[in-house]
């Protein structure tokens, strides 16, 4: 996973619970990278999962809530790092299409080895967008948080639900994003 995710996770944890808690997590996790994260490197996905699992354990929250909160927080940070054309979209649905059709293509140009999630759009009305989230990392709750972060950015009110989820015996993760 790209270093930016780890660097932002570090910032997220420090913002919420301080640098001593982050230090505590790293000491307990005993990771191969030792937590020396930089945005220009790539790290093993397992390191993030280990850190999330420790947060879940220490703060008595669910993995779903932890991933969701991080996703919602990280949107604005990823948005700053997004390619210039990504800042032209003012609508949640438009932006979600752009993630698949523009942003990920641009990201791949700079990082050909980046493993990015895919959105398979299933249906769309003016108020409801349905798409399948496809990723071997299975971070659908993180993605849900990102969609809420996006709505916060565009100033739109939305409701996101999953009619099917791989973590709840589904074959895939199907998102329903409804404008309220």
């Amino acid at each position: 996973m790209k270093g930016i995710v780890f660097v932002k996770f570090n910032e997220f944890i420090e913002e919420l619970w301080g640098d001593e808690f982050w230090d505590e997590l790293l000491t307990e996790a005993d990771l191969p990278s030792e937590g020396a994260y930089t945005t220009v490197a790539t790290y093993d996905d397992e390191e993030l999962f280990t850190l999330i699992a420790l947060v879940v354990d220490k703060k008595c929250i669910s993995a779903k809530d932890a991933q969701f909160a991080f996703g919602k927080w990280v949107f604005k940070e990823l948005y700053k790092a997004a390619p210039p054309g990504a800042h032209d979209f003012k609508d949640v649905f438009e932006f979600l299409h752009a993630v698949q059709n523009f942003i990920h293509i641009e990201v791949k140009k700079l990082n050909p080895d980046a493993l990015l999630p895919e959105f398979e759009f299933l249906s769309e009305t003016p108020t409801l967008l349905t798409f399948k989230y496809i990723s071997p990392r299975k971070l659908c709750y993180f993605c849900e948080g990102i969609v809420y972060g996006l709505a916060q950015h565009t100033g739109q009110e939305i409701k996101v639900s999953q009619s099917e989820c791989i973590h709840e015996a589904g074959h895939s993760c199907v998102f329903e994003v409804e404008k309220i």
Partner: protein
Amino acid sequence: MPIEVPTATIAELQKRISVLERKVSREKKARNIAENKLEHYSLEIYQINESLKEALASSNKKKRELEFLGESSIDAGSEMNINEIITHFILLAGEFCHADFGCYLVTDGGVISEEGKNQVWCSCGTWQEKADLVDATYALLPIKDAELMSSWGGVEYLFDSD
């Protein structure tokens, strides 16, 4: 009188210092990793840029060669007479080589013909009479067929005589 600091506070401060020391150490390590990566990427970009420059120069050279050959071969198939073909070829060759001057000689059995003698093409686009330049050039050029072939490198055995 020395100030008494509560033991708990000292312990807390020591803990805080340890946390910050580890943080600094992680940030130093991350900075080194980033610097190494960026140096590596910079070198890679420099090398790619150099090879692109070389490829572009080679491609431009090939393009000019093809244009030169193309224009020369058009003349051969045209209705121009031999003199026009030769003078146009000198012009093309002069432009292709970025030469200041160009001249040609016609030989018949190793003897220089008077055809076009002393005429020199100038890069300004005109033909001028420059006997001294032509003489100096002829002195350096192979006149007979065998000499000519020899100057191209070891093919003189193809010719028995002039």
